[in-house]
């Protein structure tokens, strides 16, 4: 049986905020779903939640939601009773993995209209001792590390990712702290153009260098903030796209994921996110694209920049530049229009602001990235729309888990992008 073609026909993203005091996670999910339905219907289609045949839920952390099966409570709140709903939880990569499963739901023929929704609400966690949320949010995440050998050492997300960045630096001499700061400048800056972003900011290399040290050499402004938000996509089969008269369907042409060794110490090289390499190669292959020419074959990339240094490594692992050239690529292209990963560059990376600019609402993040990339291809992203959409193709990237063991890469295309070389 061959796969059916699958399109994104609706995108709904709530603002990314430090805290929603006026919404629970299921109320936020309702808002994103409603936005995605409005987006689907804006050219005359008339679907409601009753037309959606199934749901795939991206929700990372039970401890955030204070609920170990949050998906069923959302399912009922969305009026989706008596239809299938399946939860995906793959750490920071939850969003990308959720898009992959929702794609499968439609490509396989199980559904013609599928709701792909992610939500996270982390900042209800609260550390009574310090009177702040973040240490308890980090604690809730730290249980994702191996509990026997790694959690007791005080391992957490930043110290896990920084290990790979430090090993990459030992091997290639980059990314330097300054080169990482440029990612922070770019993504906080792009966020100024995105009204849904949590951390719009003008920052300088010095601001980053002198921000609070988190774990060497990551500073506060190298790290994303944990955020609360929901993001939803409505996926449709080709037949439904025609039936509903969707004007600008965005086709999912490649979906791939790879889980690499969850113990960083077992990997051949500590300075690699092997999951990125395998997921990217498989997704590009499925989309008929070339890993070695990918930079010339896509217009825009929404990357998973949980930490600045790890965005730099991703430039290499996703095939944009050769290994060891990620740091120089962003540094040398600063304030040079037409070059590098900047919003006016040769391959804009994270024009939405990414995680550093928008915040990281874990389960929602990869769905937001995919939705943002789709809006770019529709030329409807708003103020952060990139100037040139000529190849008609984009990628969205999600990573997560202990030592970024999970990675998912989604390739999407508008109508023109389907046939261009």
């Amino acid at each position: 049986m061959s796969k059916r073609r699958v399109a994104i026909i609706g995108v709904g993203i709530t603002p990314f905020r430090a805290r929603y005091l006026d919404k629970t996670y299921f109320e936020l999910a309702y808002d994103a779903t409603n936005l995605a339905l409005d987006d689907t219907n804006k050219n005359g289609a008339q679907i409601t939640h009753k037309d959606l045949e199934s749901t795939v839920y991206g929700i990372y952390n039970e401890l955030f939601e204070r609920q170990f099966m949050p998906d069923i409570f959302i399912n009922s709140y969305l009026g989706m009773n008596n239809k299938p709903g399946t939860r995906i939880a793959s750490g920071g990569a939850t969003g990308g993995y959720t898009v992959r499963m929702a794609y499968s739901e439609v490509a396989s023929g199980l559904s013609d209209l599928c709701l792909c929704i992610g939500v996270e609400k982390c900042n209800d966690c609260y550390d009574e001792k310090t009177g702040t949320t973040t240490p308890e949010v980090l604690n809730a995440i730290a249980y994702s590390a191996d509990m026997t050998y790694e959690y007791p050492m005080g391992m957490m997300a930043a110290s896990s990712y920084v290990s790979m960045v430090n090993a990459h630096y030992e091997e290639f001499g980059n990314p330097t702290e300054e080169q990482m700061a440029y990612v922070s400048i770019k993504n906080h800056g792009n966020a100024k153009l995105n009204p849904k972003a949590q951390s719009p900011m003008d920052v300088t290399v010095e601001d980053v260098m002198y921000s609070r040290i988190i774990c060497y050499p990551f500073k506060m402004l190298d790290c994303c903030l944990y955020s609360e938000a929901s993001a939803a996509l409505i996926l449709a089969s080709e037949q439904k796209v025609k039936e509903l008269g969707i004007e600008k369907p965005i086709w999912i042409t490649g979906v791939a994921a790879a889980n690499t060794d969850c113990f960083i110490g077992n990997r051949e090289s500590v300075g690699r996110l092997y999951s990125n390499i395998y997921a990217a190669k498989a997704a590009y292959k499925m989309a008929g694209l070339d890993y070695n020419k990918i930079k010339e074959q896509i217009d825009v990339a929404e990357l998973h920049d949980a930490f600045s240094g790890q965005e730099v490594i991703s430039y290499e692992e996703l095939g944009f530049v050769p290994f060891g050239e990620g740091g120089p690529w962003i540094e040398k292209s600063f304030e040079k229009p037409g070059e590098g990963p900047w919003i006016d560059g040769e391959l804009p990376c994270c024009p939405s602001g990414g995680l550093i600019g928008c915040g990281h609402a874990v389960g929602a993040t990869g769905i937001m990235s995919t939705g943002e990339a789709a809006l770019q291809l529709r030329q409807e992203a708003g103020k952060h729309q990139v100037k040139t959409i000529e190849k008609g193709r984009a990628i969205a990237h999600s990573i997560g888990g202990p030592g970024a063991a999970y990675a998912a890469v989604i390739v999407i295309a508008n109508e023109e992008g389907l046939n261009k070389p």
Partner: protein
Amino acid sequence: MNEQNFQSHEIRDRIVIQYKYTMGGQSKFFLELMNNKKILGTKCKKCGKVWMPPRINCSECFADTDWVEMPHTGIIKVSTIVWYTTSAFIQSVPYGIAFIQLDKADTGMLQGIFSENLVPSKVKKGQRVKAVFKKKEDREGKMTDFFFVPEDEYDSWIAKPQYEGGS
């Protein structure tokens, strides 16, 4: 719904679960650590790969492994120093953690790296390190029963009253 003058209501809550968790096939590693200050790895019966932390099955060959006693020395593959962290560890900052490859091991394990002078240059890649143990009465059969120090600081660490060297 758009309410004027919205007022939120927050409640205090916590989730606590107690465990008596078995280390399963890896139990011997923790018992030997606690009782005899031994660090055990495992060696695949088929391919000979030495796993550290140990596992009773080789994930590459789908074969069983044998226990092997490991040296207490090794090198740092990569490290970091943590200055801001989770609520469970925030009282311990700054602390160093490193992926350490023990001599004769084929994989690296995460462990605490202690130093009198905890700066990045002291815990760099390639730094030779040696294991230091808590005193017997303080060992619980957990990874926190031991840690590593730069080789040149070993004597001063085991001279401290709360720690001791391996056999």
